[in-house]
Every structure is written in structure tokens, then in C-alpha cells.
């Protein structure tokens, strides 16, 4: 088996006295899309923060692309698409400015963009079909376009690991399809994509595997297996069936 893109070993995280992640172990292979499923407070965001380096685990290790996580992050391996509510959409930046932020790790001390950076940004914008809107202020995009702008940031960065936090919240079905297609293409080129989502219906189309999280990993398997009512019940409580969960 190839080196896992994300290897989480026995990771435990506390917020003060609250246990957020309890002995979580995960191994995610390159070139696959993983759906992360769990209730609010199940530790999805905490897991993302541990991978992006915002949180340091109390116990356990994270290995990214076979490297120390800090080295992998510095090399630009980790791309992150934030939840909509975590972004200040009135911030005075253009779509191009935001995508350019993906290049900062590759730039010098003052982050002055070189021709190669501009080319990478233009290519990423083309890839997500936002070239025509590149000079718009980011808040003036539709829900789906906003997500694609942040995916473009990851592409410009050259990220091999892409983390998406609730990318389908507030996004219409057609845009959801566009984003899914884009993520499938990126995975086919070797990227590892981890998507947290509430949209259980879309899971089989989107993901190769699903991970059921409830402070610890309850199950990592095919979407069909994870979506079985008896499995969902373990993560969401008893009276839940696929479709109207969350």
C-alpha cells in the first residue's frame, strides 16, 4: 500500500475539560475522496483544526504526506476550504487576491507575486471556471462560486490534501454537482479530499469512503455501509434514517 496522505494515530484533543477527540485513528489514501459524517460537536471541526495545525493534540501523532505535519504544511501540501460562516465575505479582497493567498508559502519574505505565482493563480481560476469573475470582490459571488474560489486557492497552492468544511451548506444542487465533479477530477489526479458534510444523500456520489465520527471514529467504510440506518443511529441517535439526518 502507498504512503497514506493523512495518517492520524491515537489522537486525543481536549478543550479545557471537554474531550473533543478521543483516541482517533485514521488512514486516508491518496487519490480518494472521504466524507466526514457526524453530529454538531462530534469533533469534525476539531479534526480539521488538528490537521491544519491550529490545534496541537494532547496525545497521538499526525503524519501528512509521509512527513512531519509542520514540514508538509510548509511545503504547501494542505489546502483548506473554510465553512461559509467562518469567512468575512465583506472583506475587501478580490477573488484573485484570495486565490493568490494560496501561493504565499511559495513566496519570499514580503510575498511579492512573481510571474510563476500569477500564472498558477490564473490557471487555478481557469480550472474552477472563475476567470471572468476574478476581479470581483469575494462577497459578490454566489454560494457555489465562493466555494470554488477557495478550492482554486488550494489548487494554486499545489495542495495534495484538500480539506473542505461543510462545502455544500447554502449551495444549490447544480453548484453542488459542479463542485463534486471538480473534486472528483482533483482526486483522479492524486489529491486526497476530506469533506465534512451534512448532506447524506449526496454522499454516495461524492465520496469513495465515509467516516462516521462521534468524538472517535465509529466506522470507516463505503458510503453505502456507513449510511445503513443502524450505523447512522450510532452517530446521530436512534430515530434517524438516511436522508433527514442532521
Amino acid at each position, binding site marked *: 500500500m502507498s504512503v497514506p496522505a493523512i495518517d492520524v494515530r491515537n489522537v486525543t484533543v481536549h478543550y479545557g475539560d471537554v474531550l473533543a477527540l478521543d483516541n482517533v485513528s485514521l488512514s486516508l489514501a491518496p487519490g480518494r475522496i472521504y466524507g466526514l459524517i457526524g453530529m454538531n460537536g462530534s469533533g469534525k471541526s476539531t479534526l480539521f483544526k488538528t490537521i491544519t495545525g491550529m490545534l496541537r493534540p494532547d496525545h497521538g501523532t499526525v503524519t501528512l504526506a509521509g512527513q512531519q505535519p509542520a514540514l508538509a504544511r510548509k511545503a504547501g501540501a494542505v*489546502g483548506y476550504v*473554510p465553512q461559509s460562516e467562518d469567512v468575512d465575505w465583506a*472583506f*475587501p479582497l478580490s477573488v484573485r487576491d*484570495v486565490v493568490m493567498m494560496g501561493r504565499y*508559502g511559495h513566496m519570499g519574505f514580503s510575498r511579492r507575486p512573481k510571474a510563476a505565482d500569477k500564472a498558477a493563480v490564473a490557471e487555478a481560476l481557469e480550472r474552477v471556471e472563475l476567470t471572468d469573475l476574478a476581479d470581483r470582490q469575494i462577497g459578490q459571488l454566489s454560494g457555489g462560486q465562493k466555494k470554488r474560489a477557495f478550492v482554486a*486557492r488550494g489548487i494554486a497552492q499545489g495542495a495534495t490534501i484538500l480539506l473542505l468544511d461543510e462545502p455544500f451548506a447554502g449551495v444549490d444542487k447544480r453548484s453542488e454537482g459542479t463542485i463534486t465533479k471538480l473534486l472528483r477530477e482533483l482526486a483522479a489526479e492524486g489529491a486526497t479530499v476530506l469533506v465534512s458534510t451534512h448532506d447524506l444523500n449526496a454522499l454516495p456520489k461524492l465520496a469513495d469512503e465515509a467516516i462516521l465520527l462521534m468524538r472517535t471514529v465509529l466506522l470507516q467504510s463505503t458510503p453505502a455501509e456507513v449510511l445503513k440506518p443502524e450505523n447512522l443511529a450510532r452517530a446521530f441517535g436512534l430515530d434517524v434514517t438516511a436522508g433527514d439526518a442532521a
Partner: protein
Amino acid sequence: MNPLDFLLEPLSYDFMVRALATSVTAAIVCAVLSCWLVLIGWSLMGDAVSHAVLPGVVLAYVVGAPFALGAVIFGFLAVALIGIVRNTSRIKEDAAIGIVFTTLFALGIVLISVTPSQTDLNHIIFGNLLGVSWADLTQVLILGAITLTILLVKRRDFTLYAFDATHAHAIGLNPKVLGAALLGLLALTAVVALQAVGVVLVVALLIIPGATAYLLTDRFSRMLVIAPVMSALAAVTGLYLSYYLDTASGGMIVLVEGCIFALVYLFSPTQGVIGKRLGAMKRQRMLAAQ
């Protein structure tokens, strides 16, 4: 009086030249920093740090150390205390800020009252623009140049920090270092502006220019031009008005800043309360004419 004399007469006094140089420098440095403060939501933090540096400046005066050193130490002390009170009790952040900065400010006032000094330390509180010495001006220019250089060279990192700290983490940068750097620069800037408008009014120079520019553009790079230009203009206008009307110079500068903000708030083409409507009416007329 012809217009040229109107502009040149005050400059025949050395103290007015120094006042102009000091106030314009302070206005520009504060204005550039204010672009980040208003976007991060640190206006109250700017208020707190600019007040909390007072005891640091007084103590620095007592031991003969540079004002900037005392200011930066007390600036960080204030931020640390605010964080401790907020994180370890049920007190919310705004209350924590209010408690910490007023207490430190009060400490500064008490220290002033027991510190014998040739220069009046009360001038730190309300500013003494017309009494700025060449030595004061030199300090303002040096600190201003250092602060401005760091802000502009690292501007893209600070903007990333303000916009998306998680992404900064994900690409291996340390947002905590960037945040701390911004707070340190805030304390330095407060020292620069003390001379011009005093501790009490520094916060105006730290908020109004950035807020005004934010109502005029959707591009951060343009904010970094609009804010200092607007603020320098306000400093010059305020100083001349105070000269001819014989009013408090620091207060006059801030008053002009506030008036410019009010005009922009009303008439900004994209964000202004009235300007937006005028624009919409104009577009409708053009549509009707077609």
C-alpha cells in the same frame, strides 16, 4: 490675505512646522495600521492598547528609557491581562477590555501625579502638538518610519492573518506571531501619535481613517492608499483651522477626521446612506431615457 499667505504664514513659526510634520507622520502611520484594525475588529483593542501604554511611557520617562520600550511592554501587558480575565472568568471580552485599560490608564495618571518632571507629563494625555521639540519630532519620525516599513513590507501576511488565520496555519505560517507583531506595532504607533493628539484621541486616528477607506473601496490595496491620504489631509486641515480659529490642535484634527467620515458615510457611491440611493436613481433615469 491671499491664499498663498494663508498657507505660508503659520509655517513662518518653527513650532508650526514641527507640529505639521508630527501630526502628518502620526496621521499616516495610524491610518495604515487602522486598515487592519477595522477589518479584524480590533477597534476596541486599539483603544485599550493606546490608553494602556500611559504608565509605560511615564515609567520610561522616570528611568530614562525610550518611551517606545515602556509603551510596548505595557501594550502587551494590557493584551495579556485582557486575555487572562476573559479566558479564566465569566467576564466577556468587552468588559475585560474596559476593566484592564481604564485601570492601567488610571495607574498612568497616578504615576504622573507623583513624578516630578520639567516637561508636563499631562501633555501625554491630551497631546501638545504646538510644544513638540526637535528631539520629539526626531523620535516620531524614526518610530513612524520603522512601524510603517514593517507594516508595508509584511502587509500581505497581516492581511492573510486578518482574513483567514486557519489558512495561515495550513501553509505553515504562525498566525500568533503575526497577531503579536500587529499588537506590538499598535503600541509603537500609540507612542508616535501621543505627541500629536494625546492618549485620549489616539484611538480616533487608529479607527476613523481605516473605516472611512473601507466605505470607499472593495480593495484592501486601495484602502492602504485612501486611509493615509485622507488622514494626512485631515491633520493638515485640522492644524490650520486650529491656528486660525485658535482652538485645540489635537481636538481639531480629530474633529476634521470625524467630519470626513460623516461625509463619506453619507455620500460614498457604493456604501453611502444617501450616495447609494442617488446612484440607484441615476441608473433608473438612464434606463428610462433609453
